[in-house]
């Protein structure tokens, strides 16, 4: 069964990397993002940006896994940020209290200039 989340990664200058999501962030999607994030951390990236432009729907189980990544980042003194959320996903992140631990930027450019 399908509707698998697709991920692409781009390393930016310094220790910044961007993960682009395309599709539904559910349980499996969240785990896939975590796998990629931990690989990026292992290869020396301390600042991760999740660009959700192509994700229109998420669920709370998927997002709970993103919270685990945030905790990991806090431990290693790194940062996880988000950009390009739909208004509803931003609202959901707010309701989940996630915005207190991770910055949310309107677009990638703004995010990178703040992270970099």
């Amino acid at each position: 069964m399908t509707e698998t989340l697709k991920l692409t990664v781009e390393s930016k200058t310094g220790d910044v990397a961007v993960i682009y999501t395309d599709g539904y962030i559910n349980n499996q999607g969240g785990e896939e993002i975590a796998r990629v994030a931990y690989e990026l951390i292992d290869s020396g990236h301390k600042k991760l940006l999740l660009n959700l432009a192509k994700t229109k729907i998420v669920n709370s189980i998927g997002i709970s896994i993103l919270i685990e990544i945030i905790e990991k980042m806090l431990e290693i003194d790194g940062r996880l940020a988000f950009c390009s959320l739909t208004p509803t996903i931003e609202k959901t992140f707010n309701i989940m209290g996630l915005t207190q631990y991770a910055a949310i930027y309107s677009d990638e450019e703004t995010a990178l200039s703040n992270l970099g």
Partner: protein
Amino acid sequence: MQQITLTLPMIRDMELTASKTAGALGEHIGMSRDKIDEVRMAVVEACINAFEHSGARKREVHMRLLVLGEDADPRGLEITIQDKGTGFSHTEVVVSKKPTEPQKRGHGLRIIHGLMDDVEIQSDSDGTTVTMTKLR
């Protein structure tokens, strides 16, 4: 009163099909894209709660989509998601305010309340029925 009823199997990602059907009815009554997305997210959360927590032997969720108001002037959607599970004590499950430290689970009901205009939960040993309303 116009209504659509659906019976869905409790299987992985089926919440998306439920949510797309609710979204299609939202489009039908001319709801805005953002409100449709809010409805879709709430349906996803209510369905995965039923899948995960209901303990229902019959692995089915019943969804009813009701158009509120007149045909020519629909006011919104009332969505009912029902499982025949073992229920839960809604008063015991604290739908808390924003947590003070990152909290992993326990967000589903808060998301549903946050995104919909009105939410009522009826739960007993015969199962759980979540009734939620979104005005256009």
